[in-house]
């Protein structure tokens, strides 16, 4: 019972913090580029504004278009509940493993891509086509990174991996872990539509992946889609932070440990956010057909991660 309440609280915290991360990256980027930038809580204000606005839906769209934001948001929240933010649940952890996380996120993307095609606009179709291409090409890297993690822990469940990494830090800090982390970081950039794969701050011709796909959304639908996107970013960051550097994650219920875990995860995610902000200020967007090269590089890294974990264990 106490675990159920704890998981619920953790998930709500996840959902509540997600827009803050987006806001922080935007603010950080602005500071790095010499601008003052909007405050960190700007995304919350935008969400509130969008929830109050009218829903405008294309005449050609069907129920798929109206259902998709709920599916995307639902899958993101479901995934958030499976990812340990500050503590590791024991019984709840067995509901879904990393493969479930990946395929739940794919379910959301699947519906969003369908919604992109549903309005009949060439922007939506183009975005859907490109998004599915990028997602399909990241799948092998994700699967192999999971494989590399599971090799050391002998489990694909997130809680087990964290427990195992904490128990045997030397093995976990090997080359394999580092390579898998790098591979997964590139995947994070691709899956969440960041530079150099996609540009999250424009809608039109220059980027044309994620933002083109969701171009037709307005009002609360857009709010749900944007919130889900922010949540996905936080999910990937927390996976990267807590599976590769799990120290600090709480296994029990002592308040001191939980507070420490919370502070540490804010620190870890904050460092990743600064890394992304620096990266986005330093690199330019890749041409669309150069993206597969980057993704295959990340695949090779993941494969090497598996090999080195395997040979060095």
């Amino acid at each position, binding site marked *: 019972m106490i675990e159920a309440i704890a998981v619920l609280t953790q998930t709500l915290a996840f959902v509540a913090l997600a827009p803050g991360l987006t806001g922080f990256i935007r603010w950080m980027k602005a500071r790095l580029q010499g601008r003052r930038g909007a405050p960190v809580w700007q995304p919350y204000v935008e969400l509130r504004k969008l929830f109050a606005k009218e829903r405008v839906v294309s005449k050609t769209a069907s129920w798929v278009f109206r259902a998709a934001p709920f599916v995307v*948001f*639902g899958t993101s929240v479901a995934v958030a509940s499976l990812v340990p933010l500050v503590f590791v649940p024991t019984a709840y952890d067995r509901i879904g493993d990393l493969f479930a996380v990946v395929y739940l996120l*794919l379910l959301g993307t699947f519906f969003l891509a369908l919604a*992109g095609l549903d309005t009949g606009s060439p922007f939506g179709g183009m975005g859907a*086509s490109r998004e599915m291409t990028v997602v*399909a090409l990241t799948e092998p890297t994700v699967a192999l990174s999971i494989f590399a993690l599971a090799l050391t822990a002998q489990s*694909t469940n997130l809680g087990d991996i964290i427990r195992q990494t904490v128990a045997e830090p030397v093995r976990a800090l090997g080359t394999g872990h580092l390579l898998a982390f790098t591979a997964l970081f590139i995947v994070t950039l691709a899956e969440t539509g960041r530079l150099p794969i996609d540009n999250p701050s424009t809608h039109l011709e220059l980027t044309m992946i994620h933002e083109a796909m969701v171009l037709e959304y307005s009002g609360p639908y857009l709010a749900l889609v944007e919130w889900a996107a922010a949540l996905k970013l936080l999910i990937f960051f927390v996976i990267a932070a807590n599976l590769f550097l799990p120290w600090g994650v709480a296994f029990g219920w002592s308040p001191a440990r939980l507070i420490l875990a919370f502070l540490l995860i804010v620190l870890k995610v904050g460092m990743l956010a600064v890394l992304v902000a620096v990266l986005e200020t330093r690199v330019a967007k890749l041409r669309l057909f150069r993206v597969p090269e980057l993704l295959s590089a990340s695949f090779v890294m993941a494969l090497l991660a598996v090999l080195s974990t395997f040979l060095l264990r």
Partner: protein
Amino acid sequence: MMAGSVALPLMLGGYVGGACLALVAPSSRAARYITALGAIVGSVAALAVAARVLVTAQPLVLTVPNVLAAAGGLVLSVDPLGAFFLAVVALGSLPAAIYGVSYTAAYEGRSSLQFFGLMFNVFLLGMSVVACAGNIFTFVLAWELMSLASYFLVMTEADVVETREAGLWYIAMTQFSLVTLLPMFLLLAPGAERTAFADLRVGAAHLTPQLRGIVFLLAVVGFGSKAGVVPLHVWLPRAHPAAPSHVSALMSGVMIKLGIYGVIRVAFDLMNGGPPWWGGLLLVVGSVSALLGVLYALMEHDLKRLLAYHSVENIGIIIIGLGAGAILHSYGLQTLATIGFAAALYHTLNHACFKGLLFLAAGNVVHRTHTRNMEEMGGLIKQMPQTALLFLIGSAAIAALPPLNGFASEWMVFQALLAGTSIPRPEVALGFPVAVGMLALASGLAAACFVKAFGISFLAMPRSAHAADAREAPASMRVAAWMLAGACILLGVGASVVVPALYRVLESVGGLVVDPQLAPAPGLWIEAPRALGHLSPVLIAALLASIVLVTVVTVHRVHRRPLRLSDTWGCGRIAQTPRMEYTASAFAEPLRRVFAELYRPTQDLTVSVHPDSPHFVQSITFTSEVRPWFEEVLYDPIVRAGRLIGVGVRRLQTGSVHLYLVYVVAALMAALASVWWWP
């Protein structure tokens, strides 16, 4: 006991009765109903047989020794493995039979529905008996019944040139499969009088390792060409679109699975498994089939051919599971091997459901729009809402999206591959991560492909008058598809009940040792042994449903403003037309560029300009084609050689009766001479 002994003859009686009575039916309309009735009786009885054998785990035997006693007579012996495949057959044939009643109405007056009814029931009979066969004679007889009947079913629309070509490819490949299977059985049989499978098991034990290897290779080639593994898959994308849709559903969903049955029966039941290279071969063949199947599906704009290529992909996934199981089995890791085999069986069952569903839903579309070309569809979700929902469920299942059944079985395959790292030989174990990568890529591409298939066919605006005028399909066709959609959902959500049942099926396979701890009381979780991973599809489904429900309710509470309908935003253009929509070719374009080395597309761009000025373009024609180059490399020489031999042989056939009499006499002399030579 009684139920079983009645059900097996009832199953045969249903199919045979349906076949014979359909042939003598007074009208096409009567033939349609009789065909369906016979098939429904047969498949319900088949389900009863399968259920009884699976529950009691006792084999059910029926022998008719008088039929061709020299060959061993007809022997039906249903053990749990056979019963599992019998259930797969029946699960596909029941909806297909119901579906056929309305679907075949379109053929009235075009082709004989009496003959169709005969062949349809013979086809179902053949498939069911293959799963039940207890000796070589029965197996080969049923195998040929199944192959020939399905050939005639493919040829239903024989007035179309494409269909006749497809039929030729199909019959050639299916006879090739028989040619490899006969020597395989000959090698296995210990003596001419001992052809029961129990005898083959004894015979296999006495074979040398080299001969066992040859038997295995013959089985992979023979059964593999029926299952449609690359490069023996060439008949699938040709024959499946040509056949009537419910026949495609049966061929793609059920018949090709009997190839998998053959491999399991021969390699792991009769021969008890073999050295690691057996599993290695299966793993390679499976990975290549999975990836190439989906890559060619992506380039396909014929809805049914796209589904046919996806069958190649899914057969590949099943064989990856088998291969992983086989390698682990040969290293003595019995418990882990069971995950691989169970994953293969699970995906077999699941693919039968979602591929059957997709073909039936595609059949609805073809029935109403009279085209298979996706570029002429669009907007069907408004005219055919139920068909659209059915196709969406099928798409999500085949793209392995939770909480449907495709996800649960692919998860099992991943777990089996993960288990491969327990193999003590690193050079062998390193094959497993590569297979993981290929499987993950295939499943990601499958998701992209089904966004294309559903999005282009069913969403946005109609791209042709056919699509704009389409109506919802007749009720019987929808009911049949809903049965399979229900199965997709139940098999996905109920994974934790299905998987222990599959472990029990595997207990009946001779060469496998199933850890009794593996089949615990069905709970909420699927557990891979040694705690590799845990998953609870039912809880994921509940979690997802409750979160979506809470979100919907909350948003509608907070937001009370009405919905406003408006035009799609289009940068200021006046009106939106279907020509502005993204096409299927455009959707697949980025992936075609990424995999250009494989596809080697041919492109032809012609721009015609105004005679006075090159700046006024009058028309642009762009054609592009992707042809599987390895098919040309592999099959063209064979086809050319076949034609050359055919031309040579033609000289013997002059049409002169005298010459034929000479042949008869010569043959007689030769026969007598040979008897004299070898007494």
